[in-house]
């Protein structure tokens, strides 16, 4: 059966995810995992999280899924060395160059190609396998039927983001926000002592320009696609509309994905508070374990509770 990989944006959420049955938990490292509405853990918090996860016999993965500028690269490598010292063995990255650099420098590190890498096809997965990735994340828009073909590629773990918001523009293929504006962002928590998990490039007290979700250092999404747009046809106003987006939660397809050979079911939602995260993780745990009554399975096709919708991916 596939493993369940849950998000956590706080130490409380880490515990909640473990208690609810997650096989693994992923967290963001402050300054290196996009930030925004999604919560990140400082180096000290990460150390605590790792102890909790390890003592439960599970795995902690760390998202390092921004693309650092050249001058920040050395700092990133230092951070990773510190992560390894703390027992962390798996990181999630977002750039093919960073992925291969890390593979060379830290051959024992597990490397996952983030959903932001844009993989959707059997060939994409084969590409990341050839590159040396241990796992690749595909969006929940990829069907079990597509996944069966994708799973003909061996030698790499395939994860599916089975619970996520699908925006109109594909993840990793959007820089609309930075077309609007680049917003200097303060980052770092003044109350935290220096150490692993500090923002890159001396950002504790500084400002960084942000752009798209993946732009160097800290990306930010200004969520412009979620605001109303006026549509003009040859200069004539034809209406106001939103870009289509939807919450994907394919609980009803858990068995089909398992049958297709998916290795990991991943949930989006580092922004979710622990009281909302726990029932979400539990429901997928039950689906994986086949502990849900048929009536409940039918209900999985129904709309989700609004509170489970992922905010600020």
């Amino acid at each position, binding site marked *: 059966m596939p493993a369940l990989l849950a998000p956590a944006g706080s130490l409380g959420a880490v515990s909640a995810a473990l208690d609810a049955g997650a096989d693994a938990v992923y967290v963001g490292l402050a300054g290196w995992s996009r930030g925004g509405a999604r919560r990140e853990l400082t180096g000290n918090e990460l150390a605590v999280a790792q102890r909790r996860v390890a003592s439960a016999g599970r795995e902690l993965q760390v998202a390092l899924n921004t*693309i650092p*500028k*050249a001058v920040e690269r050395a700092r990133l490598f230092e951070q990773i060395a510190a992560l390894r010292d703390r027992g962390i063995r798996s990181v999630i990255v977002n*750039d*093919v*160059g*960073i*992925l*291969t*650099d890390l593979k060379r420098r830290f051959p024992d590190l597990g490397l996952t190609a983030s959903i932001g*890498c*844009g*993989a*959707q*096809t*059997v*060939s*994409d*997965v*084969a*590409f*990341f396998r*050839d*590159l040396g990735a241990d796992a690749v994340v595909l969006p929940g828009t*990829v069907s079990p039927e*597509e996944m069966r*073909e*994708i799973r003909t590629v061996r030698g790499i773990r395939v994860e599916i983001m089975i619970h996520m918001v699908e925006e*109109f*523009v*594909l993840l*990793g*293929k*959007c*820089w*609309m926000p*930075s*077309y*609007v*504006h*680049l917003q200097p962002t303060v980052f770092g928590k003044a109350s935290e002592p220096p150490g692993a998990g500090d923002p890159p490039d001396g950002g504790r007290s500084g400002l960084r320009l942000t*752009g*798209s979700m*993946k732009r*160097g250092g800290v990306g930010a999404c200004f969520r*412009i696609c979620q*605001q*109303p*747009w*006026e*549509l*003009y*046809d*040859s*200069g*004539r*106003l*034809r209406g106001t*509309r939103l870009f*289509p987006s939807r919450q994907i939660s394919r609980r009803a397809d858990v068995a089909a994905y398992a049958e297709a050979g998916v290795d990991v079911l991943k949930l989006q939602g580092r922004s979710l508070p622990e009281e909302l995260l726990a029932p979400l993780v539990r429901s997928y745990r039950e689906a994986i374990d086949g502990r849900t009554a048929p009536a409940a399975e039918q209900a999985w096709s129904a709309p989700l509770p609004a509170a489970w919708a992922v905010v600020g991916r």
Partner: protein
Amino acid sequence: MTPFELNTTIANLRDLRASDLSDYDAVYLGDIYCRIYEANFLERPGDLQEGLRILRDQGKRAYVTTYAAPRNDFLPGVRRMLETAASAGAEAVEVHNLGILKIAHDEFPQLPVHVGGFANLYTASGVEVLRGFGAVRFTPNYELSLDEIREITAGCDAPMELLVHGKMPLGVSDYCFLLDYEEKWGVKCPDLCQKELFLKQGDWAMKSVGKGILSGKDVCMLEHLPRLLAEGHRDFRIETISESPAYRREVAAVYRAALSRAAGGDVTLDEGWWETLRRHARIGLCNGFYFGKSGMEYAGLRPDSMGSLLTISRVES
């Protein structure tokens, strides 16, 4: 042989035949956004062969582009198209997707690969990775500044292809929301995305081409061409995938003249060139991300070139 290459993109045979390409050195054939874009070269091997022949007969370098966001069921068609490109003498294939890069590298190693803007090239080490898969030319992600691009080239000495004019790609989708309007407007696909459609929010705008979102303003690097040449760039794109043959011809004429002049050390610009570019820019001009500012700002000496949204807000109904 000019010391630079000026190229563009054309989606189908009709547009190719209607276009005066005399000021271009090379053309990419195909629409990267949608398989059912009207008569897309990428779905019509016969048209692609004919397109490649037309370009060769005109003495142009003939390239083929590929889809930005394919799914499994695209791939048989992609292989057919790559086979046609290879057998019909395409000089390179542009890839925006890493899976297609692998297919091109493994199955059509004779085809040089240009990496497109949706491939998310942000780093020098990314260049090295993609070189390992046969890439020989690279379009950096559009949101990189010229300084950041220089950091990449300093680290790997790779030829970069830069968008110098036209609407900058901002995103790609699996879905075409214009289909919502087929019934309401009485216009069917594939005619819908041929309309001049802009999305406006507050003081900025984007152009919709169905599954693709482009900048509303036209990126314009006219007054910065000497810098681009001085920094070693030689391959320049005018993005005209959603533009008229007149746009394609007149904008290229401006850039051909300006680049030739700049290559000879003359940095002066004719006022008529600005008039041409302003006339074709429905919303105005911007510099994209080249100067470390938000994509729709204009950072040059011609602030009057920024334009305004008045052109699309006057005629509300």
